């Protein structure tokens, strides 16, 4: 069975020096290193303020020149779960699915700039909120033959950890 659902996620972007970002630790958030000078803390939406507090503490103690920005509202997150999730990915992206788990792929998804987090047994699509409807429609169009079912939106609490480091997780 293939299932897609919208997810409620909190995203706090930390812009800073690479070394300082390397030292950003979190016990309850997934750290996505989307660029050498940018790291996202990702957790369930209910932990939004908690993430901001963590990031501000990091800024205060580690990199006073850093910038912490709440990007929660800027991204739509769609989770595709099921055996055919890689097939769905192959229909949206020309990038090869990254090896290892968790893993992050960044690039165009059905023409939309986005990121795909392969973690917790599913593929989580992060796309700019203004085009979230587009990706959802394209997944529906491209994958209707795979028995895709839409499920109600839920919060996504990723397993804490880190994907990549020093930009090594940035794949195109």
């Amino acid at each position, binding site marked *: 069975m293939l299932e897609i659902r919208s997810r409620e996620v909190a995203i706090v972007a930390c812009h800073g020096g690479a070394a300082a970002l390397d030292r950003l630790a979190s016990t309850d958030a997934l750290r996505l290193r989307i660029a050498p000078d940018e790291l996202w803390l990702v957790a369930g939406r209910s932990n939004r303020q908690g993430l901001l507090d963590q990031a501000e503490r990091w800024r205060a103690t580690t990199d006073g020149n850093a910038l912490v920005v709440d990007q929660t509202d800027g991204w739509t997150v769609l989770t595709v779960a099921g055996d055919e999730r890689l097939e769905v990915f192959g229909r949206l*992206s020309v990038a090869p699915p990254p090896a290892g788990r968790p893993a992050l792929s960044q690039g165009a998804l*059905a023409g939309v700039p986005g990121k795909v987090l392969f973690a917790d047994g599913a593929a989580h699509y992060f796309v700019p909120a203004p085009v979230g409807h587009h990706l959802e429609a*394209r997944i529906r*169009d491209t994958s209707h033959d795979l028995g895709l079912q839409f499920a109600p939106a839920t919060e996504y609490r990723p397993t804490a950890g880190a994907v990549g480091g020093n930009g090594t997780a940035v794949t195109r």
Partner: protein
Amino acid sequence: MPNFDFEGRPIPIEAGDSIAAALYRAGVRVFSRSFKYRRRRGLYCVTGDCPNCLMTVDGEPAVRTCATKARAGQRVARRPAWPSPDFDLMAGIRLFKRFLPVGFYYKMFHRPKGTWDRIEGFIRRMAGIGPVPLDLAPAKRERRTHHPDLLVVGGGATGLAAATEAAGAGQSVLLVEEGTIGDQIAAGPVRDAVLQLAAALRSRPEATILEEALAIGVYEGPMVPVAASDALHLVFPKRVVVATGAVEEHAVFDGSDLPGVWLGRGAARLAGVHRVLPGKRLVVAAGTPESFDHLATLRSAGAEIVAAVVPAAMKDRVPPGIRAIVDGRVTAATGRGAVAEVTVEGGGRLERLACDGVVLSLGLVPRASLLRQAEGDRVIGAGDVTTPGAPLAAAMAAGRAAARGEKTPPAPTALPRPCQSGFVCLCEDVEAGDLKQAWTEGFQSTELLKRYSTVTMGPCQGSLCHAHLRSFVKDQGGDELRTRPTTARPPARPVRLEDVAAGARYPLEYHTALHDRQIAMGAVMEWAGAWKRADHFGDPVAEYWAVRRDVSVMDVSTLGKYRVAGPDAVEFLERLYPCHVANLAPGRSRYAVMLNEAGYLFDDGLICSLGPDGFYLTLTSGGADAAESWLRDWAETWNLRVQIANQSLSLGALNVAGPKARDLLARLTSDPIDGESFPYSQHRWITVAGVRCLVLRVGFTGELSYELHHPRLEGPKLWDALFEAGRDLGIRPHGLGALRLLRLEKGHIIVNQDTDYDSTPAKLGLDWVVKLEKPTFVGRTALERIGQIPREKGLLSLTFAGPDTPADGAQLVGVDGTHLGYLTSSRFSPILGHGVALGWVRATGGRWPDRVMAHDGAGRRFEGTVVHGPFYDPKGDRLRA
């Protein structure tokens, strides 16, 4: 029995039939008319290589019917001809052949002037392979992506062996085959081997097989697009094995294009696979080992073999009872509409043989278009494509070796005998005589002949004629360079336009968080860059008046919104912008423009000082992405300690504008917003309707305005609260239509609408935003130098007596008729009662004109007056209220 429709006639289908086979069985002999001379063309290769069987199938033109399965209900037709494709009166055009030499369109019909324009349409209607249907419903083709370790193109014995070898080694393999594996091979050991290999491969989890799938080309990567019935597959393999086999050598002699002339594999396929006899009395020219298999197949199917023309080395292979003509050569085929007789030269004499078909197996030519596109370490050929005619075992061994990355040295292949007469290129109707003429005109290489004569440029992409082209050049004395193969490019096979556009028919619309809210309020949306924005909500004039008299709200979430922070943030922005930044106190905002190194303006917006938190920048909706790149490029170039965060996606923005804007906000906030606490050109953090907003006092509309920048998802809540609270204030939403007029009355520019490619701030009347006393900023040097040159043009304000006003883009001329420029924006101003406009105007004699005439596209003329300063509220009292 199932059948399909062929020009109104039902054609029965037997199991395994291609369209062409079913048609031939039903007695169809003329499959198409040729490109230029409208000559009859019949089945020839039956391998999908030649253009002879191209027909329209279910409205799709140029379908290779020999490679397309017949299906019940199909509608099949040839290119229309008058009175019919079987008897086409336009074939008489060949009588005028001497007037239509190769490249005639480069030399003729160009004088007197206009002749070509008149005759071009006629030539285009007469030539070609059929009309493009314009009434087909747009097809939506999806894309799929694959990343196999190995891509094998070709489902013959070589390709299957390669795929099996790789799969056995644990590699992921994708094999694509143009038809159905084994379907087109006559019963025998080769077919048995192929089917056995295919069955084994299908059972392997590492392997995927795509049938009826066409490899279009090999692109950098390598990347191979494959057109299949379900989708366009983009394949990004680590390696490619091209096992596309070989095609039989095309025969070129007088009459070699007549229906009844066959390539051996085609004739044998028709007889052996489809059980249709290609002719009752056949002459067979057997020059390859496999041609004797064809001969046996045809004979056992019931054909009478009139004679076998064979080289001396093969004469012993001619079966008993068949006359052998040793070391002979077929030199001509004649007949009225189809072969009735062939001429064979042998033993120094010519002999005419009555027959209804001639089957030619003169040699094999690699089907190497794909391979030639990208041959290298990661793209290698195997089997017939490098060593034509290799025995089955050798072909399979070559496939296995290729799967391991081992290249088999290609066998030297001889070029065909140089042609003297006949059609070299069946696709484009290029004859041997055409090549000779082109050669005498100086086109003396394969590449030049290709371009001049179009040989190899038709649907077959040189499958048949490329070898002949090289042979011709060599025979004319061409050296290795002139004789070398032409550059092969995609598509290797004909491809549908819908495949080219696969995955691209999905316009990407950016929506703000208020998109649905606005639609529900009757918004008529329009494209604004990648965004869909409200143009109006049914009554743009009422929206305009709401801003001027009451209060109105506009969704301006599309603005670019950026944070810049870090110890070098001030230095960075000082270098980037031509205005002062260091003296911007916390809480204050400043209008600023972005200039490139040439001093030309390409974006504008606000700089808001956030004190210790850095700066907040707004940029235009359409230019934000480019401007962000600009910011990041310079930050990196100058190696400054700044952080740049794009908040355009996570923040929405609402512009609350109008004389009652403050009254409205006061109902939703307890924070001070009076003019003294919160004056124009400043910003504050204010909680509005429970939503914490960064509020900017702006003045684009010319009225008291507050721009509420808020978390995106809070947008609907804020929107609803504003409209609920403003009900008794006459609140309305307004769209871009009203905004364009409102800002025009203030003389505010819209970047890209009012700016030109060389718009300096001075030309735009924005000198005041540039502080040349600053030691450095991007564009400063250029502005200094430009400032020493007298200004020749400027964006001026113009008025027109209403109510009619010229349209945007109207041309401006002086009173003496001199062209002066054009209008960039022009509207009727309801509040002023006359037309207002901005336009680029050229100075004459160092002076700006006082009056101009505007000529718009509708042929109307308007007299305009040049004015100075904003049209509306020139002192800005209203926006500073």
